[in-house]
């Protein structure tokens, strides 16, 4: 039990780790998802949300969740990251949960949160503030690169209406919604183009209203889960590398004994622990500091994951860049996490804006 976690967190970590590593199975899990072409594993999601009951790890107990907050979610995402398990936890148990819990009406919460927690429904979040237009009570627009959009049972949408931001839930199986899976560099997390074609607002259950700034804060705070996925993936890349380095010999010595190799691993460790500190700091940050801490966690962890996954390939030599060896899946996820929800460069710009009070 290491700070800042409690015994409750350790228990779920143990449960999810065993399950996720069994799914990973030395890389066979991601390969199976690649072969399926769907970028998503329905059975795995049913197991994680159903049998393990993890979809609601951050949902309050009154709504059927575990009530373990950001730290609980961090635990789950670390383990999912370490296994590359293709499940929409981050969407359903992450951002959708947060929008509902923090911005939803009482009825919205009680209608959807228990069903998310039990795994009955699986929403993804579709941000339409600038993409959607409303004409005569029907909504149209296109959103690209929606993570796990092809796995969603519902869409939680945000749209601009009467100078307010409305939040609503709509079933994915709607004749006016078209979901098209996109071809992605990372084959183990699907992205989808979602087209709303004169969707009747009657089909949308409004679960709250808010303003742009508040919504953006919640979206930014959901980066904590993404950062944790990076930490988990990076840790796994380092573990794989250390194991390989201890076995492989060159010049009559295990390569783990070469100083340059050791120093490179030390640098990976530093980047990893840097990412871990940034992520945990965000998870325990006070509400006023959380958005900034989450922005920091995202850029630091995404940079670290990309560096560590790339280094892991390099330190494996030839086998590192073969398809058969699983490192490339991590590398592709790491690359994807650098650009999803905005590039790290944009992330640093946002942090700079805060430091300078948008001075520049």
């Amino acid at each position, binding site marked *: 039990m290491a700070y800042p976690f409690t015994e409750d967190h350790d228990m779920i970590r143990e449960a999810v780790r065993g399950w996720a590593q069994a799914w990973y199975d030395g890389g066979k899990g991601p390969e199976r998802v690649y072969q399926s072409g769907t970028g998503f594993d329905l059975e795995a999601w049913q197991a994680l949300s159903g049998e393990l009951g993890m979809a609601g790890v951050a949902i309050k107990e009154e709504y059927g969740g575990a009530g373990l907050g950001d730290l609980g979610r961090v635990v789950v995402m670390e383990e999912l990251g370490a296994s590359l398990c293709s499940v929409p936890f981050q969407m359903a148990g992450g951002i959708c949960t947060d929008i509902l819990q923090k911005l939803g009406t009482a009825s919205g919460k009680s209608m959807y949160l228990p069903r998310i927690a039990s795994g009955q429904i699986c929403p993804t979040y579709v941000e339409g503030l600038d993409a959607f237009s409303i004409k005569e009570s029907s909504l149209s627009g296109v959103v*690209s*690169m929606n993570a796990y959009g092809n796995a969603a049972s519902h869409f939680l949408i945000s749209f601009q209406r009467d100078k307010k931001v409305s939040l609503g839930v709509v079933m994915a199986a709607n004749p006016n919604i078209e979901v098209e899976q*996109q*071809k*992605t*560099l*990372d084959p183990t997390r699907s*992205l989808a183009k979602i087209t709303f074609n004169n969707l009747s607002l009657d089909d949308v259950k409004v679960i709250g209203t808010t303003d742009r700034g508040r919504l953006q804060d919640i979206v930014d705070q959901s980066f904590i889960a993404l950062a944790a996925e990076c930490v988990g993936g990076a840790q796994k890349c380092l573990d794989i590398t250390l194991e390989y380095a201890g076995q*492989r010999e*060159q*010049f*009559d*010595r*295990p390569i783990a*004994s*070469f100083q*340059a*190799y050791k120093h490179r691993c030390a640098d990976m460790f530093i980047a990893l622990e840097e990412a871990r500190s940034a992520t945990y700091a965000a998870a325990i940050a006070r509400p006023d500091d959380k958005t900034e801490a989450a922005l920091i966690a995202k850029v630091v962890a995404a940079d670290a994951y990309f560096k560590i996954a*790339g280094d892991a*390939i*390099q330190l494996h*030599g*030839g086998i*590192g*860049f*073969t*398809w*058969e060896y699983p490192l*490339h899946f991590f*590398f592709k996820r790491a*690359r*994807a996490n650098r*650009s*999803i929800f*905005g*590039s790290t*460069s944009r992330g640093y710009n946002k942090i700079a804006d805060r430091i300078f009070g948008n001075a520049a």
Partner: protein
Amino acid sequence: MSGLIDKFDTWMAENFCGEFESLRGRATPGDEDIMPELRFAWERKMGEAGWVGVGWPKEHGGKGASLEELVAFNEVYARHGGPGRNGHIGETLFAPTLIAYGTDAQKAKYLPGIKNGTELWCQGYSEPNAGSDLSNIKTKARLDGDEWVVDGQKIWTSLAMDADYVFVIARAEEGTVGRHGLVFLLMKLDQAGIDIRPIKQISETAEFNEVFFDSARCHKDDMIGGVGDGWKIAMALLGFERGASTLGQQMTFTNEFESIVKLAKENGAAHDPTIRQRIAKAYCGLKVMRMTALRTLEAAHHGELSREGYMSKIYWATWHRDLGELAMDVMGPDAELLKDGEYGMLHKLFLFSRSDTIYGGTNQIQRNIIAERALGMPKEPRGKPK
């Protein structure tokens, strides 16, 4: 521009067209397993017209082109969008080695096929457990009458699937270690004792291969040098790799760079100050590579191995890997989505370039080599750690 280059310019304009159009700018690293038949045809066309081996001495069928002409030749080829050459291992690595160390009979047997673009070569150096340690060769060769019989396995053999011949380093004297007792053999790939299996890479393509030797054979006259000369000849060949063969590569790099600049102008990334700085740095790297190659080649022309030559592999490999990352960042939020068309190559560049810093001696091995050979620093202790 010399008459030779003018002629080549005209020839490219007149001949790189029609069916060959679909090869324009293709077959670059990460894309080398495409359209093999059409590329064989292109090699033969180049060969028939006398454009293979322009840098070889005239007495060996070349045009004796000067260094400046070779630079210009490659620039012209790239400007016309000429595709990656699957004949380049034979032309720029093997042939100069053969000219330097081969017998007259060997030259007569092998140079014409390379020159005509009809016989392609690949390089049998790396082995599964040797990694970057070339002296740790395990593949065995034994003399059986007039023939060498070879058993073992090579790996990371680029373009083996397209090649007719492989040059192989093998251990002829059992019990020798390191650089001793090696032979440099020339072997036909199309024989019962050789099995080629492509390796699927991070990029989903497969230009690298495993090559298995199970009592594979070649005539004893198909050894360059004598028993024990294998190391020396292998190293000489790597010297050529550092030299002239980089010229063509740099033209590929220039085309990739320009494609990224074009994309940045189109999608607005050109307005991002950090992207601009990185593009400027990449451009500086291109210019540095060109001048470093000229310095190395001029020294080689005077029979010297210059110190800066030791840096060329790690420099281009690292530059190219960084270019791949830059390409993704220039693509921006869309980088995750695979594309067809003009910029579809950039994903392959990004993924395949991860192997650049590994094959042909990892960046780590390159730094060892620079420290020990260019800077004269002591070798490390060998053997088990305490």
